[in-house]
């Protein structure tokens, strides 16, 4: 918060500790998430593998099509990484964008021992190539499950400005575990879409407090949809990823059965709640209405106390 003046000599570790994950670009997130200098990109921007479809709409392309994929090291161990750039076309999935992640997941499946970190930052399907984007998401979901079945740990990190919406939310639901920060949002339908379909009385998309307590990181953590909550720094996400890598167990039918129980239980317990605050209160949170105001450390303590996680049941 009290951002010091940036010194050119500021170390990598200092930058990771002070750089907002939410604000950083996809490339900066990777640079500071992975061990210093360890990132190697696959099909980098100099290959100019841009979307073949945007020109139909007279729209500008980006050399990496809005996703950076490659490998690096996390505390010395190799990981595969994919980071979406939420500012380019809202981080949405198009043909090339999606295919890069699919290729990465397929390699991980073959190798089995290298985990995959997905830094989500997406509004979902890219409208201008909707069919290709939708299908890419379906293929990614399949590839995630095949990789997990082969023993790969697939971890989603969610704290970008575009959140994790649409098909991105479904992919997140397929991951072994998720880490989320307060600004991170996970949902299928966006706020404006709900407002358009249901009316402003049901959902006022400009009421951002409502948007965040319905879809935001704190709610997802308290629901057990995300396993770890972190402060909004790249270092926080790095630590969260390391923690999750140590916790994840292999995937199998028992996980799916447990997830069925977990979700059915959620419906039974909270299905009649009108608002997130009601859910938190029902979970036993005292002063539930104050949850959005809690600083990260206090919230983490509270969430750990509630103790809802999903990594054994997803």
């Amino acid at each position, binding site marked *: *918060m009290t*951002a010091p003046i940036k010194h050119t000599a500021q170390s990598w570790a200092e930058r990771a500790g002070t750089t*907002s994950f939410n604000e950083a670009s996809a490339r900066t997130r990777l640079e500071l998430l992975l061990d210093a200098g360890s990132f190697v990109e696959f099909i980098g921007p100099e290959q100019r593998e841009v979307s073949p479809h945007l020109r139909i709409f007279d729209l500008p392309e980006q050399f990496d099509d809005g996703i950076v994929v490659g490998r690096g090291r996390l505390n010395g161990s190799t990981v595969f990484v994919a980071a979406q750039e939420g500012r380019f076309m809202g981080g949405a999935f198009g043909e090339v964008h999606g295919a890069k992640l699919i290729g990465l997941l397929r390699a991980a499946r073959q190798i089995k021992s290298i985990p995959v970190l997905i830094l989500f930052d997406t509004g979902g399907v890219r409208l201008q190539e909707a069919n290709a984007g939708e299908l890419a998401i379906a293929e990614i979901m399949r590839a995630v499950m095949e990789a997990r079945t082969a023993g790969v740990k697939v971890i989603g990190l969610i704290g970008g400005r575009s959140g994790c919406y649409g098909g991105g939310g479904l992919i997140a639901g397929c991951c072994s575990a998720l880490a989320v920060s307060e600004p991170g949002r996970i949902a299928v339908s966006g706020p404006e879409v709900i407002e358009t379909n249901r009316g402003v009385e049901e959902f006022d998309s400009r009421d*951002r407090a*409502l948007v965040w307590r319905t879809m935001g990181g704190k709610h997802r953590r308290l629901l057990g949809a995300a396993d770890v909550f972190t402060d909004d720094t790249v270092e926080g996400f790095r630590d969260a990823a390391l923690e999750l890598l140590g916790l994840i167990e292999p995937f199998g039918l028992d996980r799916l059965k447990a997830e069925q129980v977990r979700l059915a239980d959620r419906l039974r317990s909270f299905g009649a709640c009108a608002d997130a605050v009601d859910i938190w209160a029902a979970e036993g949170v005292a002063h539930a209405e104050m949850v959005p*105001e809690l600083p990260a450390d206090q919230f983490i303590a509270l969430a750990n106390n509630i103790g809802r996680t999903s990594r054994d049941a997803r």
Partner: protein
Amino acid sequence: MLMSMNADARNRMVTTWQHQRDARDARIEAGSRLAHGKIVEARDATRLMEAVIRPGDRVCLEGDNQKQADLLSGALLAADTAKVHDLHMVQSGVVLPEHLDLFDHGVAKRLDYAYSGPQSARIARMLFGGKIELGAVHTYLELFARYFIDLTPHVALIAAVSADREGNLYTGPNTEDTPTVVEATAFKDGVVIAQVNEIVDKVPRVDIPADRVHFVVKSEKPFFVEPLFTRDPAAITEGQILTAMLAIKGIYAPYGVRRLNHGIGFSTAAIELLLPTYGEKLGLKGKVATHFALNPHPALIPAIESGWVQQIHSFGSEVGMDDYIRARSDIYFTGPDGSLRSNRAFCQTAGLYACDMFIGSTLQIDLQGNSSTVTASRIAGFGGAPNMGADARGRRHPSEPWLKAGLEADPESPPPLRRGRKLVVQIGETFGDKNVPLFVEKLDAIELADKLNLELAPIMIYGDDVTHIVTEEGVANLLLCRNADEREQAIRGVAGYTCVGRGRDRNAVEQLRQRGVIRRPEDLGINPLDADRSMLAARSIKDLVRWSGGLYAPPSKFRNW
């Protein structure tokens, strides 16, 4: 004979010189039939309007910069136009759609106002279409002044937080224009009608005494207030940060500006957020930016918390800042109840006479330095900027920045006879939204004046009042320009890649730079690549909440948690 004539004349005077008082009493009598004491039910508000207001009346509908008497504007709009028509609206802010609907429906006909931000496009269309008979567009102080000379309201429709049963009003932190409007109306035989959020046994403090208030209407919902002065730090760009660094190092520091007013743009928000970081590094704490005429900008919280700011007087309040202000009464003006007391008229006066600098952004600047926020299709009015951004010719007290600026402008005069100068700084990026250039050969305001047959083009700040222009290209000090050509080249010299900028005489600009009239980032020891968002003391609204110790409660539309 003479004696008796005089006595006769005196008798006539007694009966004919209180016409207005009689008329007011008749209006109050008509309205009282709908009231219990002074209290009128909300459902009777329109009937109250019809009872009290006469065709052709001058009506002040509050209509401020921030708070809106929205229940009363709705009630007036619903009035039977057979009873209420052809009103002359005198109000500082034309803000709600209803304010213009009044003209569409024939309730109102003539308009004198100051500011129309949210309605700027529609008001332009209605003026072109002849729907509104325009008196003039004013500055705030100017319109307030005319309330006491030739635009005194017959009826004032005002907004307050609460009233007691006698009609004492508590206006809350957003007092704004109310005391001025009530003063002009109540003491010149007008009728004052207040909408209040609640009726209480005892108001927290008396902002308007009961004997100036004739009717009180309780509203179902609180009056509308727009958070106009909240700038999300997340939206501040590197370019704005660079420009802010140039302003701090190139103007605040050398002049030692302690008493000042900031505009509402992102560039000045960037300055506010750089004071505790960049300003601290430059060793400026306590030496600049200590006293403000300023609304409670959330972006100033880090500077306040870091001990930069000593005192702030405010035109209005800002949504979400109430608790913070209450807890920081050393800084703000607060009442015995603890909440902010704002007052637009006094704060405008303070900005005009007691501040050494105004710094704010604008939409267009021409080659003479005239600036305007009017575009071909939008008339936003003036608000207060022209009062802030003008040299006060009536000022007589010296101060270091004022004298230094005076010396730069006029080195020849003998010091005891030399006027000081207020620093009037225009700050902005050379291109605005959608690549629209800040610098133009001819202001759109001139074209607009042609189209509307106005005698004056709506100039926000006249070129001869502007002392500095700051862009990402550097600082132009117009005080040091000795003729119109130099002035033009100084402006072109910081106009970047706009047509105006590309049309500069490179040699002339280089000479101005040698003389320090233009100072580039490198002349000030600033590397543009250092302009980074990590320099901001707060990078998000959430950071501001943290700085405030949880006292700042931002409105929902600014949250991402």
